[in-house]
């Protein structure tokens, strides 16, 4: 049964459908794995435990009665703590929401439940999704399964670590400036930020409303597509939700994997998202991937995006501005923490509660956003940032004239060590230099693993971007590249990750004196 946790969601769904395994068995295996590795990884803030097993048993009964709600029914899933769940605390990793159980489910969560997926728990993140390492979680960081002394990326480090450590086959994330794609890159997993408006934001605790997008986190491109198909599509509860029919992303992934060819695909290499400041091993793996794609028939073209270098500055004005407004709802009145020393006014209680409930990065960004929006500075900062947003969108439009998809390394470096950047906000912000342009323009992006950096043995990710509404291209191209790379490696990249939480074996033939752990 240990293999069970290594199955992809697609494999697990197939075996659930064939009756080879029950959802209770699958859910229990993942809960056991969580119990085994969580002391090291800390991907979860809440584990559903019995509630998950109860739901799994329900799904098994439905399936036995021929009423399985979807082919994915019974597959366990982890949910980023930024998404509201009516039966589990939803804190966005902040003290100000400690223990809060929302009165409703976020739409992507409701859709997963309706399809019969079994929520395993809530995953760790940087507080209110502000960060690139999970070091800003109020509940302690998540550790990278490849090297426990390193960050798993952020903000969605918990979801990425959970799938990479085989604690869940699939998970949900949210991506405001790279919070799905950057953790995927540094943990050797797959993550997709859909087109803005492609997945409902209803019930996603808002960071920056014009940038936030919910998306899938997985170990394979196909699994991401399967989840994308379930959570995507129009939702009247989100006014920015796109009203249109979407093709099946899973179908696009299957087609891409089966074809094994990129003939006729124009792949644009973004000149500005590579080069100086990028780690040597990241650059070499990226270059090899380009060769691989060219060998598969892709036409590789270099494209210029001269305004991308301004994107990060625009982002760190637009995001704090929107966040300072969104986070005004934590007022110690309607929900969340209230610190009341007595004989104080509502305003004083509000200020004390926010002082106690918010961590340092949240305070930094709220104050920065308040500054950027204040009278006398609005045009110089927020206004200019919005103009840069136009320029970034124009760069994308021009680039997509020359290419069907754009590619870059997903991150400038592999996973860094804890503490390396936590006290240097600007250094931390630079982690997002590759992923931010997609959020500013609303275009979809995917990160998938392309190998290990020779100098540190850590995963490297490739980012693929497509025009708005063309998410299927990511899956088509991503699945082809994934299939080509895995054929060459002989196994998925994650099979090379170190063993975790292995119990010390009983001494005997074939066992190693140190238990064989790394």
């Amino acid at each position, binding site marked *: 049964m240990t293999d069970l946790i290594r199955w992809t969601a697609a494999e697990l769904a197939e075996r659930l459908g064939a009756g080879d395994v029950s959802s209770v068995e699958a859910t229990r295996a993942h809960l056991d794995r969580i119990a085994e590795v969580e002391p090291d990884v800390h991907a979860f803030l809440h584990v559903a435990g019995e509630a998950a097993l109860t739901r799994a048993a329900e799904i098994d009964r439905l399936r036995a009665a021929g009423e399985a709600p979807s082919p994915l029914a019974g597959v366990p899933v982890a949910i980023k703590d930024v998404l509201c769940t009516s039966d589990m605390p939803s804190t966005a990793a902040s003290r100000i929401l400690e223990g809060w*159980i929302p009165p409703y489910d976020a739409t992507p969560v409701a859709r997963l439940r309706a399809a019969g997926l079994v929520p395993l728990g809530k995953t760790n993140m940087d507080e209110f999704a502000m960060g690139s390492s999970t070091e800003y979680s109020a509940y302690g960081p998540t550790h990278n399964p490849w090297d426990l002394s390193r960050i798993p990326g952020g903000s969605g480090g918990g979801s990425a670590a959970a799938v990479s450590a085989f604690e869940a086959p699939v998970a949900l994330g949210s991506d405001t400036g790279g919070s799905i794609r950057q953790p995927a890159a540094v943990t050797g997993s797959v993550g997709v930020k859909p087109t803005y408006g492609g997945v409902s934001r209803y019930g996603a605790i808002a960071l920056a409303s014009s940038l936030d997008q919910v998306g899938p986190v997985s170990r394979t491109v196909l699994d991401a597509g399967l989840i994308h198909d379930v959570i995507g599509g129009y939702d009247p509860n989100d006014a920015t939700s796109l009203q249109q029919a979407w093709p099946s992303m899973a179908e696009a992934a299957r087609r891409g994997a089966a074809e094994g060819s990129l003939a006729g695909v124009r792949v644009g290499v973004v000149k500005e998202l590579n080069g100086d400041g990028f780690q040597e091993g990241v650059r070499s793996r990226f270059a090899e991937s380009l060769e691989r794609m060219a060998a598969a028939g892709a036409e590789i073209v270099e494209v210029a995006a001269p305004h991308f270098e301004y994107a990060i*500055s625009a982002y760190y004005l637009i995001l704090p501005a929107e966040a300072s407004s969104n986070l005004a709802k934590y007022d110690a009145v309607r929900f969340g923490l209230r610190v009341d020393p007595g004989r104080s006014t509502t305003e004083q209680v509000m200020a004390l509660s926010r002082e106690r409930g918010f961590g340092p990065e949240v305070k930094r960004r709220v104050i920065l956003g308040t500054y950027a929006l204040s009278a006398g500075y609005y045009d110089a900062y927020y206004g200019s940032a919005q103009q840069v947003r136009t320029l970034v969108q124009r760069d994308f439009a021009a680039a997509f004239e020359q290419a069907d998809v754009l590619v870059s390394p997903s991150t400038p470096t592999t996973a860094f060590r804890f503490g390396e950047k936590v006290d240097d906000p600007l250094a931390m912000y630079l982690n997002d230099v590759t992923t931010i342009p997609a959020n500013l323009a609303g275009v979809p992006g995917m990160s998938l693993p392309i190998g290990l950096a020779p100098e540190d043995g850590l995963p490297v990710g490739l980012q693929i971007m497509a025009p708005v509404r063309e998410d299927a291209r990511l899956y088509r191209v991503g699945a082809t590249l994934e299939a080509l790379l895995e054929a060459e490696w002989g196994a998925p990249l994650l099979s090379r990750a170190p063993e975790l939480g292995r119990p010390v074996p009983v001494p005997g033939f074939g066992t190693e004196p140190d238990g064989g752990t790394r």
Partner: protein
Amino acid sequence: MPDASLEITVADVQHLAGLARIALEPGEIEHLAGELNQIVDSVRKVQEVATPDVPATSHPLPLVNVLRADEVGAVLTQQQVLSGAPDQQDGRFRVPAILGEEQ
């Protein structure tokens, strides 16, 4: 660059913290003033290309005003709305005094 480094003073941060309703400690205010100056110095870069001929974009995709049908929808019950309240009374949110003694 004395101008740039002095752009956000400790008094400014104190004022901003008041606007943002965060009772920052004196140490935090001093620390933040330093950090914010660094950050603002860096993000000021947007002004280099934000020339008057470039229109502003507030949203990734063009949207028109979105209205739903004027029908009663599935909404939360009063009990659900109050379920997370730090304090409540008679079906309402209960708050500390709105006005201080001097007000």
